[in-house]
């Protein structure tokens, strides 16, 4: 055991900027041997950036990393592993086509004399590791044939095999069932007993109180503080994370609701959800909540024509419509703000101008020639209306901050004069200020009569912005709450599918 006054890991004064955004400003983190240290903060608070710096994925602009009191430069992920820092990432970095054992020892396979891989040794060691974890997975199985939870366990075995001193777990329970989560907590206790330092990142605050010894809170890339769990309540933790009272954050207004604009009946995409029906009115913000894998995002994609429907019908302003592609949806006045703006929402290599007018560029053209002046007028207006932090319409979207990028996505759909806007995770990964601006925009749109479906994993946003809330669990709508009757507990219970069996 190292001496008590030298922590196992210290990160001090870490600062990191990306073009146009300061991701971390003077952030510190200290983890002792045998400690479970929770790292919490809203989306975009800088947790992932901090961990990527620790893992050698990003270089830092300033600050220091000390391991057992000695300064280290983590040059690469491989180097991090050699130093005893193991990171279990949110998106698993695994090779589905290789065996479980090969994945565990990827890049550091035991060798025989002459450099050939020692297969007996690999399988034997992988088997022992998995047995230690108390799981029965054949190390020869192809990783791709395992469930997500099993893959997660393999990732943990991998972290342990490296004799890690520090293990970082980024949202480890997101894909796990309740039982699997309990088992994971068991492993965490074992690791702690062995003197491993654990950094535990999660959005599920109950887990923080259940597993962690201390918690460090980040907000908008700033270090808020480090607290002992024993002296903290859930409410205190939330207000530390959010930094202000929730009511101030959500500018929701009551807009008089018009007639139904979107009426979906019995929508089914076998793979994702079944028999989803709801009515959305002009001026209404309808929240759809649910855990990862509940099918909530896929509902929006299906309405937009991006995923083909197996069954169900869609009525727009009372008229049955057929939507087979995004182009159909756009023509009918439906817009989709996707959950993944970089992968689905934006063409990062293009200018703000080209992104904003992409869905309507045909309308701006005469015989294929773009009427540039008219386009410029639209863009200038959009930049002003949404108060976008851009230096010129020709600025490349890749170089903008997350919040400004999200405004570009929203601006793009404002151009189409959509009557229905499907917004999936509309404020994911953007800072609090930009979030509030997006909320203001949603209210302004609702006031104009636009119907908004807001699919979100952020409970506060669901509670703060929705007129009505639908909850999905495993592809089925399990509950509906009017704004006045919605509570975090009620939504969580329905999202977990426990609404009838529990209580």
């Amino acid at each position, binding site marked *: 055991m190292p001496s008590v006054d030298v922590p196992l890991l210290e990160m001090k004064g870490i600062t990191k900027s990306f073009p146009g955004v300061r991701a971390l400003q003077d952030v510190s983190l200290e983890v002792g041997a045998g400690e479970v240290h929770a790292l919490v903060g809203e989306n975009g608070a800088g947790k992932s950036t901090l961990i990527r710096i620790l893992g050698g994925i990003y270089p830092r602009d*300033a600050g220091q990393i000390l391991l057992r009191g000695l300064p280290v430069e983590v040059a690469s992920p491989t180097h991090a592993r050699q130093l005893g820092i193991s990171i279990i990432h949110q998106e698993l970095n695994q090779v589905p086509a290789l065996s479980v054992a090969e994945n565990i020892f990827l890049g550091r396979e035991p060798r025989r004399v002459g450099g050939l891989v020692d297969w007996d040794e690999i399988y034997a060691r992988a088997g022992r590791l998995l047995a230690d974890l108390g799981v029965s997975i054949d190390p020869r199985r192809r990783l791709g044939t395992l469930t997500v939870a099993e893959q997660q366990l393999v990732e943990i075995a991998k972290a342990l095999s490296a004799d890690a001193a520090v293990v970082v777990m980024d949202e480890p329970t997101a894909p796990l069932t309740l039982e699997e989560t309990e088992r994971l907590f068991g492993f965490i206790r074992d690791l702690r007993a062995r003197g491993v330092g654990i950094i535990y990142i999660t959005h599920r605050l109950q887990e923080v109180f259940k597993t962690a010894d201390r918690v460090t809170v980040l907000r908008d890339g700033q270090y808020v503080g480090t607290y002992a769990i024993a002296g903290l309540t859930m409410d205190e933790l939330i207000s530390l994370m959010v930094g202000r009272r929730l009511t101030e954050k959500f500018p929701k207004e009551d807009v008089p609701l018009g007639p139904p604009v979107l009426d979906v009946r019995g929508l089914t995409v076998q793979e994702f959800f079944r028999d989803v029906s709801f009515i959305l009115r002009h001026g209404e913000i309808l929240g759809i909540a649910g855990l990862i894998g509940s099918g909530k995002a896929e509902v929006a994609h299906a309405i937009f024509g991006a995923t083909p429907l197996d069954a169900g019908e869609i009525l727009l302003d009372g008229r049955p419509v057929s939507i087979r592609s995004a182009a159909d949806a756009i023509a009918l006045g439906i817009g989709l703000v996707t959950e993944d703006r970089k992968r689905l929402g934006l*063409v990062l*290599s293009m200018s703000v101008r080209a992104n904003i007018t992409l869905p309507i560029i045909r309308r701006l053209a005469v015989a294929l020639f773009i009427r540039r002046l008219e386009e410029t007028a639209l863009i200038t207006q959009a930049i002003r209306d949404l108060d976008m932090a851009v230096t010129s319409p020709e600025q490349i979207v890749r170089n903008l901050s997350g919040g400004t990028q999200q405004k570009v996505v929203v601006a793009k759909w404002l151009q189409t004069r959509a009557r229905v806007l499907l917004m999936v995770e509309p404020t994911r990964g953007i800072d609090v200020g930009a979030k509030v601006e997006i909320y203001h925009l949603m209210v302004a749109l609702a006031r104009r009569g636009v119907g908004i479906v807001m699919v979100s994993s952020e409970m506060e946003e669901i509670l703060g912005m929705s007129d009505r809330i639908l909850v999905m669990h495993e592809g089925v709508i399990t509950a509906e709450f009017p704004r006045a009757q919605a509570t975090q507990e009620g939504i969580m219970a329905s999202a977990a599918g426990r609404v009838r069996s529990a209580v």
Partner: protein
Amino acid sequence: MQFSRVAGLATLRRLPLTRLRNVLRRFGIAIAFALLLVVLSVLSGSFLTISNLLNIARQVSINAVIAAGMTFVILAGGIDLSVGSVLAFSGAVIAGLLAAGRPVPVGIGGGLAVGALLGLVNGLVITRGRVQPFIATLGMLTIGRGLTLVYTDGRPITGLPDAFVWLGAGEVFRIPVPVLIMMLVFLASYVILTQTVVGRYVYAIGGNEEAARLSGVNVAAYKTLVYVISGVVSAASAVILTGRLNSAQPTAGVGFELDAIAAVVLGGTTLAGGEGSIGGTILGAFIIGVINNGLNLLNVNPFYQQVVKGAVILLAVLLDRRLR
């Protein structure tokens, strides 16, 4: 506080370098081209003469025209390896029609139609058949060559009318006709890529195909279109080459795809798609042409010329990666 001041100072010190980097990134190829011209005019007295420069432009024109089409394809995130074979088959069809006594416009129209058709097949195999562009056009490279051999029976087709030969070998006010054709192709490409909906869509598809689709772009149609464009301009370069040689050769255009890709990449267009410009491509084509010409003037052994040319291309691209 202390840390932010340190970071601030570091940015300040980095600033002039950043600016230099930006200039190099934007105009690097143009600067490299200018340097090349200066060096060659010092090394060889016959380099900087009007007749030599026009000669270079004429030699460049065939590759440049193909590279213009290749720019569309690469910007849209694809690749077209079949251009040389498409050139050969179009050229053979043109020569065949003309040798059979058809009027020149009919011959040229037939050749361009063949180019468009082969490009259409490429596009459909890629979009409808979901075949990787590399593989689809590799198949067409072989098919096109085979069709050419079948059509010509492996022999050159000769006996072309003077009016047609003029397109490859003629001049207007001392400017070679192929150079005029090249200018026309580049002007049209520039206008399409910068002023029209087609250009926007090409950049959007190459930059992020899924986002383009979700913005209502008919991705399959526009992806197909770029291969049709590539096929048509390959046929246009067949007009130049066939006219210049006064015959259609069954082995014409072998390896041309590589020079065209080199010109596009030298011009700063990324092979991943979505980023680049047609102006860069013409510079890239001229850099390759000037290197060829310069090495000839300097009497460099032709075997070494290939090594030098390849090395220059690699160097330019490596430098470009560094700056990005």
